[in-house]
């Protein structure tokens, strides 16, 4: 007797798609909803893992948007140190959907940017990009001018990109209670001073995150109606949790929520797709082989595995753009100012340094 499972492809069955294969042969996890052609401007933002996508796009001759390039003369090492070429604008890591919404509102002038700055030893730090300038800014005025440039670049990304890639990283966040705004890092870790009366921990839930993400995407589409979104979930576990739970439990909860938000957002919106970098690294079938020995950082081989899958799945669905992309890459000026490929800029990892 026939039934719906009888005509399904091998990829629909665990045995043929996973159990019978070497983990390195588990492939074709993604059926892209829309094409990304080499000439399509792609903006990348989000948590640490988003950096890999931007870097891979650049390396393969795709049009990664660099709306805030390093100034002429700055060496690749210095550019890296000052966080140029990491994301499409110099926002630093945007770990949560609510932070993405906050940046979008600020960039589009929907909300004013808070005046708060952090001072230490004569230098000034940006609460919303605490690690963007090692050693801080010379003055609050310099910081604000520089942040305005980052906001303008972020706005330009929204307006110019055809694809906006966002990697969801965290559900835990720190906010300024009275001010009603969010920090990317707990004050007092990378910079600033923790104030228990003002700084509030929030473990965001599914509904809150999904709503923030939808609001951010809607705002961006209001500026650029043709913009499409590609969501990913960072496979990198939490460095630390303030939830009171064991960090492994908090990580699983966090990733599950983010993964569900990504799925629901994709279901609800035709303009949004999800790329399964999370599954390619963190699925139990991968047996953790793509993590470094600390079981947290993704190894270069893992990154290559993910990005190979990304381009292979695009090619399978829309044809191979590699030749055209390679031609673009040859014509392009020397690309990667971002330094060593295995060197990620991850403020969250700095938490580890403050562990007592």
């Amino acid at each position, binding site marked *: 007797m026939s039934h719906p499972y009888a005509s399904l492809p091998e990829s629909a069955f665990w045995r043929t798609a996973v159990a019978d294969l070497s983990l390195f042969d588990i492939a074709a996890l993604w059926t892209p909803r829309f094409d990304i052609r080499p000439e399509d401007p792609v903006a990348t933002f989000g948590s640490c893992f988003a950096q890999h996508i931007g870097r891979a796009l650049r390396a393969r001759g795709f049009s990664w948007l660099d709306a805030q390039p390093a100034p002429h003369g700055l060496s690749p090492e*210095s550019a890296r*140190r000052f966080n140029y070429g990491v994301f499409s604008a110099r926002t630093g890591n945007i770990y949560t959907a609510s932070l993405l919404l906050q940046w979008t509102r600020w960039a589009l002038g929907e909300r004013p940017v808070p005046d708060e700055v952090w001072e230490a030893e004569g230098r000034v730090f940006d609460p919303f990009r605490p690690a963007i300038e090692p050693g801080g800014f010379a003055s609050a005025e310099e910081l604000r001018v520089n942040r305005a440039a980052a906001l303008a670049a972020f706005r330009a990304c929204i307006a110019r990109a055809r694809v906006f890639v966002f990697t969801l990283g965290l559900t835990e966040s720190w906010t300024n209670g009275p001010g009603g705004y969010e920090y990317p890092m707990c004050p007092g870790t990378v910079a600033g001073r923790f104030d228990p009366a003002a700084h509030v921990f929030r473990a965001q839930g599914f509904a809150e995150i999904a709503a923030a993400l939808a609001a951010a995407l809607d705002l961006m589409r209001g500026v650029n109606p043709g913009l499409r979104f590609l969501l990913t979930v960072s496979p990198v576990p939490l460095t630390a949790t303030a939830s009171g739970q064991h960090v492994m439990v908090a990580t699983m909860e966090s990733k599950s929520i983010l993964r569900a938000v990504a799925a629901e957002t994709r279901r609800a919106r035709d303009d949004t797709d999800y790329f399964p970098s999370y599954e390619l690294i963190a699925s139990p079938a991968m047996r953790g082989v793509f993590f470094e020995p600390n079981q947290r950082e993704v190894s270069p081989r893992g990154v290559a595995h993910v990005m190979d899958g990304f381009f292979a799945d695009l090619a399978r669905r829309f044809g191979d753009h590699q030749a055209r992309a390679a031609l673009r890459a040859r014509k392009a000026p020397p690309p990667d100012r971002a330094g060593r490929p295995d060197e990620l800029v991850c403020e969250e990892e700095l938490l580890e340094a403050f562990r007592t």
Partner: protein
Amino acid sequence: MPRRTACLVGTSFIGAVYRAYAAEPPESHPHALDFVGTGTRVFADIRIVDGRFTATRFHAPEPMRPVSAFDAFIVYADLPSPYGIVRTRKDCAEGRVSSQVAAAALADSVGGSAAMQLVRTLKEATAAPVFVVSSNIRRVPGAEMTEAVYLKNERILEQLVAPAARYIPFPAALFDARRRPREACYRDSVKLRGEPAGAADHDCFHMNAAGGALILAALFDALGRL
């Protein structure tokens, strides 16, 4: 004026100076000059190992003397172009970068220059004064070279090399009133060893022996002030 022994170390630009110097007996010159050079693309490879320059493609006279034998060094290679420095400053202003990024960009521009790296190497290896000559002064993409631009570029290069080295300006006689290269100094230009450049290799940066003689006089003048 005491007779100095100096070493001119540089890229293919030194060929014209060598031709001018070699045209006369060494003892007829007010100062003795040794020549050490290599191609522009591998100039950054020059090192000082066991007291002598390595990774060179040309030196005269034979055998190469140790660096300790010289009273002064003259580096003749491209500094960062003044145009590049101006562009860095402009980029930093337009990009609203922080003061420390602007400082790093400028430092990287200067420090990334093979000529300045060699200056630093010489300063570390010897106590002898170092002079610098650069052709980059005339690179002004997209702009017209004028006397004002030339003098501004000269000031930028002077500031760039100080205090590690002293900048030796190009003699004015190399150029016409609009700072265009004089045909008499640049026609039939020569390469690293003083050999004629191929017809396709002539440019407005390499000189002939007449141009080299003007440079040589400027170098001797600088050495005479030591």
